[in-house]
């Protein structure tokens, strides 16, 4: 009997990254290469009247909209973002053109000499303004039960509203891309999560078939969603430049440029109206989700979907009316970020329940558990919770670990404890998995097995985990599983590396293929096995009505946060997070623990430190001097445990894990702060500035 797959091994990507041997896009050499720098809009919304260009020295080029041979739009869910601005600009930082040439100093010099003449147009800067002006990109609805009747029969109706702010990814390695046109093929190298997204975008921008395009992922220094759709834009830009100049073109952002123009987590307002019966239970809920999509919709519709389908958290509210809207503002576009819309509504729902419980004088945990989902219950979209729900075990473990009940009873002012319960839908939202139809290849060559997938290692441990799944399944040494480099010319499209789907979906396909390969091992020296994803048969989803199972299954968790508030300065000190998760089964316990700790800390950052606001479309915190993320000094004690609950269709029972920890820590911290000061928390980030004001209002 082999050891459990959960037993940790050394991360395969670790040594090269730690020793400095890993070669990122900025370390790569290309013969005869040129550099590119973007000229960006300085206006939030304006008509471009003219672009006056200085005379260009030899070997310097300006690349803009007229150079795009195909469609001048970046392909994504809604392909509305121009690769280069056309008649108007819609946000500060929008790319207008590239200056390309051999020397960076000269490129900068040319950029400063280009004069863009604008005519300013009326712009919208806040969600409130956009709502007033009905600037709606997307407006979705779904219902469950009979909300209207339930509200009519309610004993009490409670309303509440919650806000969340921007968040910048601050991946260690900024965005970077190189394109090289040779052998009648466009080779694009860069830091990214989704090479096939970039390939798809390139086919449209160049107007070429995919066969003439190769996208190669280079070592990627963090992503967190920030390298999901955004690199498609830079990939198209450098490819157009490489085509025009006939030379390799590299574009690497520095941190300040990256912050100004790259996508961020959607700021949100989430409104609740709850109908309570005579037992004070919530029988019906109206939820209104407002997201600031920024100047272009991009993939925001899918973010909005996850936001809406996660809005009821781990609870079963019999009657529901959920509306979600993406609003257009003249802010930098929002995009994918770990959690993908779910953190906004999970925060709101957790705090809504917390606030009602406090008002009723009931312990928030007790009140929450009265509404908890059980196996067999309907999901918010009328699907079904089919798997065993281990929420009671999770809660029991996390309250024991943290001493939650005693600490709540013996609470003192300025010391707070709070709990959050949460879930995350595994894999793509809605019909995403069916549409993508992921493919994988396992190829036996002698004693070795080559694993071909488009799943990218971006620091989360995908390579280690997927190789481990194959090694354990085929029963060969880990070293004998070779991870093919992620190059769209070499690997099949197993989908993007997003939505916590890699281990469960891609890993699941690898396990199936691995079992076949193991059976056929002695047939030949060379065997190739492929698999294409099919949703479990029982899953029924209607993407027009939003009815059915939005996700094949869910991962679950509970966090207890303990905080201390400085009574003089109101600084928030997160002392400890106790965390228990059901992710099916950990494929590598150390890698998973690291991911949980990272997600928890990133969530704490969003909930407390990471203030990012705009003033008339201009970011106020636009560099790492002003925008702070937690350092190792800010990391609290984290105690983390797992409750095994193997999932039938996951490899070795594994479900999703990557985004789950991010979703959980913000509401736990907010509940703890609320407990410490005896005030309701309705917006994050929670800052000392905000708390001092609230506490003196109370006094």
């Amino acid at each position: 009997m082999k050891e459990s797959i959960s037993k940790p091994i050394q991360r395969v990507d670790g040594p090269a990254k730690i020793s400095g041997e890993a070669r990122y896009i900025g370390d790569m050499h290309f013969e005869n290469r040129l550099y590119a720098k973007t000229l960006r809009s300085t206006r939030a919304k304006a008509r471009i009247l003219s672009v006056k260009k200085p005379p260009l020295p030899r070997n310097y080029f300006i690349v803009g909209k007229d150079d795009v041979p195909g469609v001048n739009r970046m392909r994504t869910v809604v392909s509305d973002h121009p690769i280069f601005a056309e008649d108007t600009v819609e946000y500060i930082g929008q790319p207008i053109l590239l200056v390309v040439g051999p020397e960076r100093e000269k490129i900068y010099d040319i950029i400063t000499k280009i004069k863009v003449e604008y005519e300013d147009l009326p712009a919208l800067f806040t969600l409130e303004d956009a709502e007033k002006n009905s600037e709606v990109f997307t407006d979705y609805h779904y219902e469950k039960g009979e909300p209207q009747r339930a509200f009519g029969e309610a004993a009490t109706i409670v309303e509440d509203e919650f806000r969340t702010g921007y968040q910048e990814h601050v991946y260690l390695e900024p965005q970077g891309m190189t394109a090289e046109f040779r052998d009648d093929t466009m080779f694009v190298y860069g830091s990214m999560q989704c090479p096939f997204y970039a390939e798809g975008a390139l086919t449209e921008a160049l107007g070429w078939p995919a066969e003439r395009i190769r996208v190669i992922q280079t070592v990627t220094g963090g992503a967190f969603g920030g390298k999901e759709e955004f690199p498609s834009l830079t990939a198209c830009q450098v490819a157009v430049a490489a085509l025009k100049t006939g030379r390799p073109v590299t574009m690497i952002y520095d941190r300040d440029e990256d912050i100004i123009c790259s996508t961020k987590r959607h700021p949100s307002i989430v409104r609740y109206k709850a109908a309570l019966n005579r037992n004070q239970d919530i029988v019906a809920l109206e939820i209104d989700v407002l997201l600031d999509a920024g100047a272009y919709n991009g993939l925001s519709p899918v973010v909005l979907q996850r936001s809406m389908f996660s809005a009821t958290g781990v609870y079963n509210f019999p009657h529901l009316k959920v509306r979600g809207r993406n609003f257009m503002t003249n802010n930098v576009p929002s995009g994918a970020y770990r959690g993908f819309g779910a953190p906004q509504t999970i925060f709101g729902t957790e705090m809504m329940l917390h606030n009602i419980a406090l008002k009723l004088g009931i312990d928030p945990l007790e009140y929450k558990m009265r509404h908890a989902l059980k196996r067999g219950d309907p999901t918010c979209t009328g699907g079904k919770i089919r798997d065993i729900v281990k929420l009671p075990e999770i809660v029991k473990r996390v309250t024991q670990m943290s001493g939650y009940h005693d600490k709540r009873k013996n609470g003192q002012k300025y010391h707070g404890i709070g709990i959050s319960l949460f879930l995350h839908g595994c894999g793509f939202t809605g019909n995403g998995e069916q549409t993508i139809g992921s493919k994988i290849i396992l190829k036996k060559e002698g004693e070795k097995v080559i694993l071909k997938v488009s799943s990218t290692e971006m620091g989360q441990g995908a390579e280690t985990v997927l190789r481990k799944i194959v090694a354990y399944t085929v029963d060969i040494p880990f070293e004998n599983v070779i991870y093919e480099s992620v190059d769209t010319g070499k690997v099949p499209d197993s989908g993007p590396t997003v939505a916590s789907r890699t281990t469960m979906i891609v890993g699941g396909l690898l396990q199936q293929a691995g079992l076949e390969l193991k059976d056929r091992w002695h047939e030949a020296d060379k065997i190739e096995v492929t698999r294409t994803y099919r949703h479990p048969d029982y899953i029924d989803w209607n993407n027009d009505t939003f009815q059915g199972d939005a996700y094949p299954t869910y991962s679950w968790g509970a966090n207890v946060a303990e905080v201390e508030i400085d009574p003089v300065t109101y600084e928030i000190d997160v002392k400890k997070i106790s965390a228990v998760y059901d992710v099916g089964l950990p494929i590598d316990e150390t890698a998973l623990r690291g991911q949980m700790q990272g997600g928890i800390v990133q969530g704490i950052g969003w909930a407390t430190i990471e203030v990012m606001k705009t003033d008339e479309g201009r970011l106020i915190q636009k560099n790492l001097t002003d925008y702070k993320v937690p350092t190792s000094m800010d990391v609290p004690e984290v105690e983390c445990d797992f409750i095994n609950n193997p999932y039938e269709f996951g490899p070795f029972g594994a479900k999703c894990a990557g985004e789950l920890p991010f979703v959980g820590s913000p509401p736990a911290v907010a509940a703890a702060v609320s407990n410490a000061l005896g005030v309701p928390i309705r917006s994050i980030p929670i800052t000392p500035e905000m708390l001092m004001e609230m506490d003196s209002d109370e006094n």
Partner: protein
Amino acid sequence: MVKGFRPETLKEALKLRAQYDCLPIAGGTDLMVQKARGFALKPDFRKPLLFIGHLPELQRLEVINRQIHIGAGVILTDLLNSETIPDIFKEILALMASPPSRNLASIGGNICNASPAGDTLPYLYAMDAQVVLQSTDGERIIPIAGFITGPKQTDLKNSELLTKIIIPQTEFDINMYRKIGQRKGMSLTKAAFLGMANVADGKIQDIRIAFGSVAQTVVRSGKIEQSIVGKSTKDIVKNISEISRQYAALIRPIDDARSSAAYRKKVSLRLLEEFFVSNLAKVSNLRKAQSKGDIE
């Protein structure tokens, strides 16, 4: 092109300084950030650089006649590791930037940068530190408060170098320093408070109060401090709102990307009260109790 001079001695440096309009640079932890133009580009230095961080004459740290003489080139890490530096100053230094920055940043640089948020400044103001300014013509010794004339502005003449900082070797019985940043490490200061005092027989013998990051330069008032000296801690605690009002008139913070004027002002005054009510009162009670032999 960025031009630079790297003299071997202070004398040579002063000569170059007299001869050229140049920018002195030591660790560069402020200047390299302020003058950065972007990835892979040369920083925007308009004047030739005069590298002084390595000069042996600026590395000395010694006590002369009960005064601590710190060479302007001494890095923060060395101050932190020195036995000469009082604990309260070390507490301040330990909260500055990060270990890598502290390994480069010099105390002279922190002074000459003259940021309203400069972390060494409240202590230097509170201690009546003096700065030594040298040129080929000789030297001037002036108080820190006279040297710093405004945000990012000093009285440093084009021919001068800041070579030394002189701090009286005085330590106080009661010390309280608080730096408010956006996070626990590697953070610029939103507001800082430093209070130091000596109490004997229930009366305040000496008191120093300085606020950082809440006005154009460090806020310190000799007048208010003098009005406190000689009073009993009890009276001071009773009068706290009056003292608070006096300081409130001097604290004029701004709204910026890191905090709000309202918070900065409020938190400064709350820290001031905390200093009097908790630290001063507690310590003097403790003293009383100790003299009665109630506790060890």
